[in-house]
């Protein structure tokens, strides 16, 4: 008996993959690229942590170290975190979840992958022919007048990948507006879609400002015009304002999709309707909007005016409120649920814990006086890694495991999934918690060598990073294994709600035999008594 044709078996040539219009195949193309960049950025991180085992920084020279952390930042931010969830899980799941046969603009979707690859290759070229030594933040006048690195090449790579971001965001926004299945009103959409919509608003509005900033940076470096050079009448602080106007909303690009994934996983594995649907939906929008007005909290000691700092501080506290709402709502969803501990749920629970720690330390940084002490130290490094790695990467892995049966038609080995999730949680905390202490004690960030009294905490952190590295390699191994030998998945192995589970695993190219009609609210799980007997 032959299996029905699904999107994976529908065409075996390289051409059918590289010229596909199918959002699901494009998602897989992206998944391969994103994984590559993740391990490249991770390799840089490994070398950084190894170098920091000794106070003298004996492993690599200062020059090399500076290029390593710059490479780590550029790759992880622009070629992993910003795209990751939207272009892999987003691309794959959005049309399915919304009850459509594809995104609004399939060819634009393919183009965005090519733009991403071209941008990535240009950036990699820059990083490998000698690298960049300015930090991913590219502050002027260091990056324009003093750096001997390949700044313009790296910047061109980032610029090109920006088009990919904008295209993806545009595609999602239009798709969510126009291609919802009959009966799926805005407030019946699963919350993953709300979070991606909010993410897309930021992608579309913030990225162009980065594009122009990078153009000005390149022109300054190539032609010495003076836009950021004080000797020629320019203002280096202007660069910081323009840069952070994008880069702060960018961190919400990085976290919002993860929050959406957590909502999906928690409802499925607590088998319960989400607590406070509308609050979570509006919280996503609030984070996106308020997030555009807090960029100056990166500049409390930079020389901006006192009044600006006051405004940015209070707005930064404000933007923390919707995130807090989400955390409480997830807890409310767990309350009186029927909770299972499959790997995706472990990742989601880990997210809630680690994101809360990261978010609380954000309150320290929003506090003007405390920020003066801890900014530019390892405290900040720990803060953003808690959110982006402890939070976002955990959510990404959680989502990957959750939708793996749908994407591949295979079940991953559950025990290994749980082992990896737990190992990641502990390895992560061991790596980054000591860094909060280091920061409070005064160890600056971006230091190739450091004062000897900081060594013990650095050793703990490096030890944690070896566990983390192993923990990240585990899924690579067993997920790949499952592609060939994993148990075959049914259409809805988790018995979850959501339109993506009403079609085969893996889905056919056209997603649904017939477009479903939506008559229920999101997450309409039966009451627990029924579930216990079912």
């Amino acid at each position: 008996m032959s299996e029905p044709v699904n999107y994976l078996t529908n065409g075996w040539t390289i051409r059918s993959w590289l010229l596909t219009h199918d959002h699901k195949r494009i998602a897989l193309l992206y998944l391969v690229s994103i994984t590559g960049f993740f391990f490249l950025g991770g390799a840089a991180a490994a070398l950084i942590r190894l170098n920091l085992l000794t106070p003298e920084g004996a492993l690599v020279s200062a020059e090399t170290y500076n290029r390593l952390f710059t490479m780590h930042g550029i790759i992880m931010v622009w070629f992993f975190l910003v795209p990751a969830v939207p272009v892999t899980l987003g691309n794959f799941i959005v049309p399915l979840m919304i009850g459509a046969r594809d995104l609004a603009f399939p060819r634009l979707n393919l183009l965005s992958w090519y733009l991403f690859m071209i941008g990535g290759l240009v950036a990699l070229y820059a990083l490998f022919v000698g690298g960049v030594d300015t930090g991913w933040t590219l502050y002027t006048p260091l990056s324009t007048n003093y750096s001997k690195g390949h700044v313009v090449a790296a910047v061109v790579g980032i610029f090109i990948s920006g088009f990919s971001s904008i295209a993806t965001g545009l595609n999602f926004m239009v798709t969510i507006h126009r291609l919802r299945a009959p009966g799926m009103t805005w407030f019946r959409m699963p919350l993953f879609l709300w979070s991606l919509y909010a993410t897309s608003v930021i992608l579309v509005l913030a990225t162009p400002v980065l594009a122009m900033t990078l153009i000005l940076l390149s022109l300054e470096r190539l032609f010495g015009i003076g836009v950021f050079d004080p000797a020629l009448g320019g203002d280096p602080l202007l660069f910081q304002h323009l840069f952070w106007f994008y880069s702060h909303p960018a961190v919400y690009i990085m976290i919002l999709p993860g929050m959406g994934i957590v909502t999906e996983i928690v409802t499925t594995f607590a088998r319960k309707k989400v607590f406070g649907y509308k609050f979570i939906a509006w919280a996503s929008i609030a984070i996106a909007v308020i997030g555009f007005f807090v960029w100056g909290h990166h500049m409390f000691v930079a020389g901006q005016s006192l009044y600006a700092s006051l405004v940015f501080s209070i707005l930064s506290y404000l933007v923390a409120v919707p995130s807090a709402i989400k955390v409480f709502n997830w807890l409310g969803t767990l309350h009186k649920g029927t909770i299972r501990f499959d790997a995706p749920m472990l990742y989601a629970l880990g997210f809630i814990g680690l994101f809360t720690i990261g978010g609380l330390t954000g309150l320290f940084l929003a506090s003007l006086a405390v920020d003066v002490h801890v900014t530019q130290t390892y405290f900040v490094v720990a803060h953003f890694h808690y959110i982006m790695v402890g939070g976002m990467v955990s959510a990404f892995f959680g989502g990957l495991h959750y939708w793996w049966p749908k994407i591949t038609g295979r079940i991953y080995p559950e025990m290994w999934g749980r082992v990896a999730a737990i190992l990641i949680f502990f390895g992560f905390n061991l790596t980054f918690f000591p860094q909060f202490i280091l920061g409070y004690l005064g160890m600056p960030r971006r230091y190739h060598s450091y004062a000897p009294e900081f060594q013990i905490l650095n050793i703990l952190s490096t030890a944690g990073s070896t566990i983390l590295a192993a923990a990240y390699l585990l899924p690579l191994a067993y997920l790949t294994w499952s592609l060939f030998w994993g148990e075959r998945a049914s259409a809805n192995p988790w018995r979850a709600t959501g339109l993506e589970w009403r079609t085969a695993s893996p889905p056919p190219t056209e997603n649904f035999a017939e477009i479903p009609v939506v008559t229920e609210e999101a997450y309409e799980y039966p009451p627990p008594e029924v579930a216990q007997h079912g």
Partner: protein
Amino acid sequence: MSGWFAPAASSTGVETDHLFWALMAISSAVLALVFGLMALYVVRYRAGSPIDRGALAEKSWIFEIAWTGASLLLFLGLFVWGADLYVRLYQPPGGSLKLNVVGKQWMWKIEHPAGQREINALHIPVDTPVELLMTSEDVIHDFAIPAFRIKHDVLPGRYETIWFQATRTGDFHLFCTQFCGTDHAAMIGWVDVMTQPDYQKWLDAEAPSETLAAAGAALFQRYGCSGCHAGTSTVKAPPLDGLYGSPVPLEDGRTVTADDRYLHDAIIEPSTERVAGFPPVMPSYAGQIREEDLFALIAYLKSPAKEQP
């Protein structure tokens, strides 16, 4: 050498620590709540647990308003506390000991008013407010003394100010904390806080041949400033006696105060703030005078009776 809970060594630093630990207490409480509830729920409501799940709360509004409101109130309080301290952090008290700092790749140069110069070291007396006027020779650096819980970026072409009052003697780390290139991690030093008598001894021991203002007087001659600005000059140039601190009417109608920043920019980029009623003939000294020498020139211009070299 700092231990695990290195207490702050400055007056404002102690206040910063209070706020830090308050935040720590609040965060721990919230974290305990979140982790606690999570642990409670995943155990209590795990699949297979026979506990009665009962009716679900339909109206979530009360909870939502409650925790949103509580968060907002808490955050407002934290904001006010932090903002108040921050404002005071950047308002130096009058009568402070004023020192100049120039950051350049990859060292810190510090100038005392009596002319002592240090590199990567800062000797100051305890229990005395100290104000630093800082600039950079090249890229953006950041002058940080973790023990004092203070730091600020140091920019090229601009003067930035911080102040602190050390509360105990000892040696404390000085770090550059804005990535500034290859040897950023080597741009470090020590702050040596001494008792008043020891500080005076240090000043005497380091006594230079000339004060900062005297050095500035020599530069005033060397760079030809006296050619136009001396009383005997035929060129019509603004008089400099008593200029510091007084208002200066500009050509475009504005009036600015002749502070350190004004004097610095008037030498480096005279065309940006032309003085009303004078011909625009002063050349720019951009790129010709080092920042530390500019400090000396300004010290000379500030000195009441212009000291002769």
